[in-house]
């Protein structure tokens, strides 16, 4: 399974979260340029995060909005 790039797999979340040092970022980027398998999995993860955020979003019911407004001190 996969490309067997264990170090790169471990770096994926911190890399996408932007919490690596400059040195680590450079190492990760060098690896990604050489390894299409990891590169694809990193891109997948980015898109997955976006997909999860959109899929999990459910608009607030209008009736609740009205009830919240009714809790104000002036009402």
């Amino acid at each position, binding site marked *: 399974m996969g490309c067997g790039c264990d170090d790169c797999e471990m770096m994926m979340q911190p890399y996408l979260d932007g919490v690596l040092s400059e040195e680590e970022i450079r190492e990760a980027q060098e690896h990604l340029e050489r390894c299409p398998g990891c590169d694809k999995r990193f891109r997948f993860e980015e898109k997955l995060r976006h997909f999860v955020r959109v899929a*999990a979003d459910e608009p607030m019911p209008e009736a609740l909005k009205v009830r919240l407004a009714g809790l104000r001190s002036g009402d």
Partner: protein
Amino acid sequence: MSESAPTAAETRRIAEEARDRVRFEEEALQLSDQVYRVARRLAGSREEAEDLVQDTYARAFRSWQQYQPGTNLRAWLLRILTNLNIDRGRRVQRTPEQTPLEEGDYYLYNRLESTMPDENPDEERVLERLSQNAVVESLAEVPHDFRDVLVLVDIGEFSYAEAAQILDIPVGTVMSRLHRGRRILKQQLADKAVVN
């Protein structure tokens, strides 16, 4: 002179307080969509989420004077909400230490790809194997301690520092729970996608 007649200074103070209060309430209400978005994924059902948000606003409007103007109101509201959610007794749960070891970060991709006929599919096509329902159901199955952080950061778009403040845990704990939470979520997604 009647005792109850307020002085001019007092009248001004009362008027200022009323104005501050109205402003607070308006600002809080403007954030309700964002508060609901987080509540909906923390709570088990829509009804529970609605109750949670309503109780949060009732409490926020009661204790509005405890809010320090100029600080992060969204985080302040979410702090109330997560505390209420915990008070509701949802902590009768596994602790993080008892959750099973999760798979690595490539697990979901590898599982999805293995079900596809093409040799080397585009990552967009791999992502299409997942449905919105699978995301909603999988999130609900992430244990609470991980889900709190995952929902705040990845869905509510709070920073690590804000999530730490809201949940009253160290930033390092936010990061480790977030990383493990995402892996648990991906494991759940893999199981659902492969079953479908």
